[in-house]
C-alpha cells in the first residue's frame, strides 16, 4: 500500500498542469472558478483546444486516436482540469456516444462520426429520458418505424442537457413492442437539423435553460444511422452508462469548490463561527473519504484486480457533497445571496448588485445543483443497485 503517486505519475501531472494552465483561456477559467454563466462558445472553445491537443477523447483507445492513458493518468488529467477551472467536458460526444460507436458501430460510422467528436467540432446531445420514462428508462415510447432505407421517428425526449446547442442526438427509440420492454429498443443517431426536430428549452428554477424538450415529428433517419443491431439498443445503453460512471464522483471539482467555500467563509467572517466552521470540517472529511474511495477504485483498475463495485456509492456521495458545498457557499453569503438579477451571472456585469456581484452565483448554483441527486440515475435508483449487489434480487 502506498498513497503517493509514482515519480512518473507526478511528472505526468506536472506536464498536464503546465499545459492546462497555459491553454485555458483566462476568461473561461474566471467564469468557472466563480460559478458564472458559461456560453456555448465557452464550452466549445475549450473542447476544441482539448481536441487539437488530442485530449478531448482522453479515455479513448489509441487505435481511435486516444492518448493511451491508464486510469490513474486520466484521473490526474481530470483533476488538473478541474483545479485550474476548466469547464467540465460536455460528455455526450466524447464520453458517451463515442465509446458506443467504437464498440458497436460500423467502420463507416466510426469514420463518419468519431473525427468530429474528437475535435470538438460537433456537439452531441443525449436522447434518453422521456416524459414517462425517467428512472424507468426501458419504458421509452419514442417510435422508429422502418420504411425502406429510413426510419420514421415520432415521439418526445426531455431533460436533454444543452439540447439547444446540439448538432446531433443519440436516441433510444422503440422499434418493437414485443417481449420485454428492454428487448424492443434501438440506438439511433439523429441529425438535429432534420425536418421535424423541434427543441424547446425548459427554464429551471435558477432561471437558466440548461435542459430541453426535443420533439420528433415524422423525422426521417437513414437506416445507416442505426448503431449495431435493431432491438439491441438496451445493451448499448447499459454499456454507455458504465462509461458515464467513471468520473461520476466528480471529487476534483468538489475539492476546488470546497476551497472556494473556505475563501468565501473567511471573506464573510463566518469562518470564525465554530458552528459554521464545523460544518465545513464535516464536508472536508466527506471529501477526503470520497477521494480515498476514488483512489481505491483507480488502484483496483490499474492493478487489474477485481474492480471495486462501488460506482453507485461514488455517485451518491459525490452528488451529495456537491449539493452540500453549494448550500454552505450560499449560507456563507447569508442574506446577500438572496437578490436575483439574471444578468449578474454574466462575467463582467457592471450593474449594481446588493452587497457585490460575487454573491450572484451562490443561490443560483445551490438551486442548479439540486439536479445532481436526480440525474445520471437518481440516488434512489443507485441505492437499489447497490442493495441488489449486496442482497440479491
Amino acid at each position, binding site marked *: 500500500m502506498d498513497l503517493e503517486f509514482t515519480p512518473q505519475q507526478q511528472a505526468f501531472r506536472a506536464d498536464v498542469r503546465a499545459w492546462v494552465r497555459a491553454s485555458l483561456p483566462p476568461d473561461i477559467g474566471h467564469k468557472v472558478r466563480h460559478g458564472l454563466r458559461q456560453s456555448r462558445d465557452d464550452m466549445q472553445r475549450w473542447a476544441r483546444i482539448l481536441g487539437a491537443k488530442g485530449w478531448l477523447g482522453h479515455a479513448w483507445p489509441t487505435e481511435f486516436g486516444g492518448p493511451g492513458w491508464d486510469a490513474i493518468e486520466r484521473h490526474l488529467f481530470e483533476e488538473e482540469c478541474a483545479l485550474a477551472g476548466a469547464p467540465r467536458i460536455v460528455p455526450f460526444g466524447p464520453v458517451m456516444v463515442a465509446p458506443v460507436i467504437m464498440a458497436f458501430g460500423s467502420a463507416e460510422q466510426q469514420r463518419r462520426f468519431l473525427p468530429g467528436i474528437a475535435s470538438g467540432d460537433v456537439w452531441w446531445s443525449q436522447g434518453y429520458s422521456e416524459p414517462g420514462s425517467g428512472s424507468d428508462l426501458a419504458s421509452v415510447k419514442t417510435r422508429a418505424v422502418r420504411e425502406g432505407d429510413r426510419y420514421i421517428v415520432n415521439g418526445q425526449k426531455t431533460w436533454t442537457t444543452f439540447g439547444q446547442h446540439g448538432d446531433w442526438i443519440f436516441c433510444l427509440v422503440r422499434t418493437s413492442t414485443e417481449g420485454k420492454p428492454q428487448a424492443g429498443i434501438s440506438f439511433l443517431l439523429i441529425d438535429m437539423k432534420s425536418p421535424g426536430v423541434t427543441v424547446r428549452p425548459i427554464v429551471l428554477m435558477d432561471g437558466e435553460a440548461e435542459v430541453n424538450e426535443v420533439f420528433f415529428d415524422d423525422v426521417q433517419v437513414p437506416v445507416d444511422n442505426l448503431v449495431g443491431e435493431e432491438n439491441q439498443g438496451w445493451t448499448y445503453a447499459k454499456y454507455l452508462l458504465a462509461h458515464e460512471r467513471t468520473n461520476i464522483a466528480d471529487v476534483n471539482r468538489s475539492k476546488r469548490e470546497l476551497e472556494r467555500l473556505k475563501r468565501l467563509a473567511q471573506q464573510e467572517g463566518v469562518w470564525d463561527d465554530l458552528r459554521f466552521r464545523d460544518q465545513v470540517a464535516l464536508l472536508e*472529511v466527506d471529501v477526503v473519504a470520497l477521494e480515498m*474511495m476514488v483512489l481505491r477504485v483507480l488502484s483496483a483498475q490499474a492493478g487489474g484486480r477485481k474492480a471495486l463495485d462501488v460506482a453507485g456509492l461514488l455517485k451518491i456521495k459525490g452528488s451529495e457533497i456537491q449539493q452540500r458545498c453549494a448550500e454552505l457557499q450560499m449560507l456563507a453569503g447569508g442574506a446577500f445571496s438572496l437578490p436575483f438579477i439574471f444578468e449578474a451571472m454574466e462575467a463582467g456585469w457592471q450593474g449594481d448588485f446588493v452587497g457585490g456581484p460575487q454573491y450572484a452565483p451562490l443561490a443560483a448554483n445551490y438551486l442548479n445543483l439540486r439536479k445532481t441527486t436526480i440525474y445520471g440515475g437518481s440516488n434512489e435508483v443507485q441505492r437499489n443497485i447497490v442493495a441488489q449487489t449486496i*442482497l440479491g434480487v
Partner: protein
Amino acid sequence: MNFEFSDDQEQLAQAVQRWVERGYGFERRTAIARAGGFSAEAWGEIAELGLLGLGTSEDDGGMAMGPVAAMLAMEALGRGLVLEPVAAVALVAASVLAQAPAQVRARWTPRVASGDARVVLAYQERAARYRLDHVDTRAVAAGDAWTLAGAKSLVPIGDQADAFVVSARTSGDADDANGIALFLVERSAAGVQTRGYALQDGSRAAELTLAGAPATLLVPPGPALATLQLAIDTGIAALAAEAIGVMDKLFELTVAYMNTRKQFGVAIGSFQALRHRVADMKMQLELARSMSYYATLRLAADPAVRRRAVAQAKVQLGQSARYLGQQAIQLHGGIGMTDEYIASHYFKRLTTMEMQFGDTLHHLGEVSARMLETAGVFA
C-alpha cells in the same frame, strides 16, 4: 499510488483470521467476558501469532511489519470481537517504549513482543476529558529516581498489566502543555493500586492510583507530549482498522438475517425501505474503510499532516460506526436487542470505540482547527 497488500501482509491477515474463526468463537468470548474480560490463555495464543511484536522493531525483539500489516491484523481481530487489548500493548505502549532509553528498551520491549510482559498506556485523567495536555499527576525527582502521585482512569487491562506508561508532570499547572513527561511504573511497585472493572463492551479496564510510586523516566518533558500524541494517533489508526472488522462482520450478519427472516410471507430484504438502509450502511462502511486506510498511510507523515488525517478518520469512524451499528440493531428487530445474539455485542463494541481516544465531536474540533486553504487527500 496503490492499495494492494503484499503477500506477507495477506498471509498475516489470513493467519489472524483463521485463529479468530477457529479459536475465538462466540462461546469462548462470552466465557472470557464473564470471567472479567481478559484471558491470559488467549493472550498467549495471540503472542504465538506474533501479534504482540507488531509495533516493536526486530532489533528490540519484535517483528514489526509496518502500519499496513498492523491494520490488517486489527481488522481481523475486530471481526472476532477479540477482547484482549492487542493494540493497546503491541502498538500504543510499544510506540512509547520505542522512544525510551536503551536500557529500559532492552528490559521491556522483548518481553512485550513475546507476551511475557503486558505494558499499557495510562494517560486518561478524570478532569482531562479528551485532552492529552491536561495532566494533574505529579512526578517528583529524588536523586536519579522519580516518584509519581496521582490517578489515571480507564486503563486497559489495568489490573492485569505488569507495567504502565504514565503521563505525569514535572512542572507547571494541570493545563500547562510544558512539563509533561512519560514514565514507566510497575504494577508490583510500592504505592501502586489498581481497581479493575468491565466496560460496556465486555473488555477490561482499571483505575490506577499512584501514591509516591517509584517510576523510570521514559521520555523527558518537551518531546514527551509529541510522543504521547503519536501513541494516541497510532491507537486511533488501530482502532479504526479494528472497527472496520467489527462493522464488516456486523454488516454481513445483518445482510444474512435480512435474506432469511420472513415477514408478510417474504424475506424482509425484499422491502425497499430496508434495502436503501443497506445501501446507506454499505456507504458508511466503505467511507470508514477508506479513512482507515488514510489514517494508516499517514501515520509516518509529518506530525501536523498525521494529526489532521487521523482526526478526519476518527470523525468518519464515529459517524459510520454509529449509523451502521444502530441500523444493524434496527434491521434485526427484537433479536438484535438480546444479549444472547451476537449482534448486540458488536454494537456495544462500536459504541465503546466512539469514545476511546476522543469522540467524534472532539476530533471534529481538531479537523476544524486544522483546516487549510486546500482540501483533499493530499492537502
